């Protein structure tokens, strides 16, 4: 298996790990958004969705562990590549002009860590129930309600109510929107880059790949931002 070790240590090998883990996380983000958009279908639907996710604790933890593993692979590979990139140009230019690179492509190493920091905040906020940055008016830890067992194997999850409470503060909503914009930029470049890293490109489909990456990134930003905005403006739960 030494060939695999050699490949995964190589620059392109690390990029392939970034692309494959990125693809899995991209899929998760889409699934997560589609699940959450059920808030527009009403309290019962969203609560049932939450209950179905939580009903099989074993499966839930397997999925969580897998996602954590994939995220770790993505982050570790990116750190290794960024360090190599820094070492590849120890002395920078006095002047450097961009011709074609985009703001999104040049800021991947910044948008990534910020989105990761947001992810930690988001998990503490909705899964644990702790507003770690103190952005809300009242500590959300006291208002977020966890699922309760109503009968053997039956759960009651007040997901809808928690979302309304969670997005009651404008500062929290602003932080979520900021993070979603960065996530959109990150995914827009990342998804397009993935095709090239895996060698799946063809000049015939290049514009289609670019359009797909940008399009899905825009849908994710709009879909995810709509929820906190709808709650804050009273469209949902008002």
């Amino acid at each position, binding site marked *: 298996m030494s060939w695999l070790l050699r490949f995964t240590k190589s620059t392109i*090998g690390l990029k392939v790990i970034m692309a494959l883990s990125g693809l899995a996380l991209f899929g998760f983000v889409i699934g997560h958004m589609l699940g959450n958009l059920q808030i527009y279908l009403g309290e019962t639907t969203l609560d049932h969705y939450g209950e179905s996710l939580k009903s099989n604790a074993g499966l839930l933890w397997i999925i969580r562990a897998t996602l954590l593993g994939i995220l770790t692979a993505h982050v570790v590979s990116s750190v290794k590549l960024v360090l190599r990139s820094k070492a590849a140009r120890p002395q920078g230019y006095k002047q450097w002009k961009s011709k074609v690179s985009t703001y999104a492509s040049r800021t991947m190493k910044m948008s990534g860590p910020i989105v990761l920091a947001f992810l930690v905040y988001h998990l503490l906020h909705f899964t644990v129930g702790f507003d770690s940055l103190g952005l809300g008016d009242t500590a959300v830890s006291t208002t977020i309600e966890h699922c309760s067992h109503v009968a053997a194997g039956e759960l009651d999850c007040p997901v809808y109510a928690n979302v309304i409470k969670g997005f009651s503060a404008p500062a929290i909503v602003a932080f979520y929107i900021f993070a979603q914009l960065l996530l959109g930029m990150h995914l827009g470049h990342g998804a397009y880059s993935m095709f090239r890293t895996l060698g799946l490109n063809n000049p015939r489909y290049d514009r289609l790949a670019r359009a797909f990456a940008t399009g899905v990134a825009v849908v994710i930003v709009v879909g995810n931002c709509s929820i906190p905005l709808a709650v804050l403006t009273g469209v949902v739960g008002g």
Partner: protein
Amino acid sequence: MNLTLHVWRQKGPNDSGAFETIQASGISEHMSFLEMLDFVNEKLESDGKQPIVFEHDCREGICGCCGFMINGQPHGGRPRTTVCQLHMREFSDGEELTLEPWRAAAFPVVKDLMVDRNAFDRIIEAGGYVSVRTGSPQDANALPIEKDHASRAFDAATCIGCGACVAACPNAAGMLFTGAKVTHLGLLPQGEPERYTRVVAMTEQHDAEGFGHCTNHGECSAYCPKGISLDVIARMNADLLKAQFKNRD
């Protein structure tokens, strides 16, 4: 025309180097950029100063020797133009120009604007060739080659190895250069037998030389004086991936 040049001066590989401001006066717009530097150097030498060192050879845009940054752009930024083919009419009187060598750990500065690009040669030595048995020559057109393959291989083969791709890349990656060689040889029947061992050897040498990684910015291709497409990198990536299944050692 008169220009103010801010030129990187470095006595040798171990010198820390610094920018020096040099006035260039009486420049003709018909001079090439290198002729302008020749002209400036004559003046420097007659004043008893060290001339500005820069690499050059053919001065017709095909050898790949010349190249440095002009105002933050490899070869000055004019599309598909090496610095020897860049003319002073592209600039205006009184302009200030910053001249810097390619900056990459794999391209150590030899002196002033000249860098050591032997790293590229070592990547070629690792696999950028086809092994040919000598003997009576084959009939020139006996080997059928698909037109599309021949065209793409030719496009990739126009790489002159000047290093502008490394200089332009925010990660100082040598991926466009390596990808061009892998694509050029791998697309042709003569290069097919060594296709998967070549891509492994060349990319490993690329990494060993200390080049960075590709983030698909596209700067390399945009500044390439031969307009090598970013597609060569994607093809190299695909070949390296396939090599993990094809190679048996």
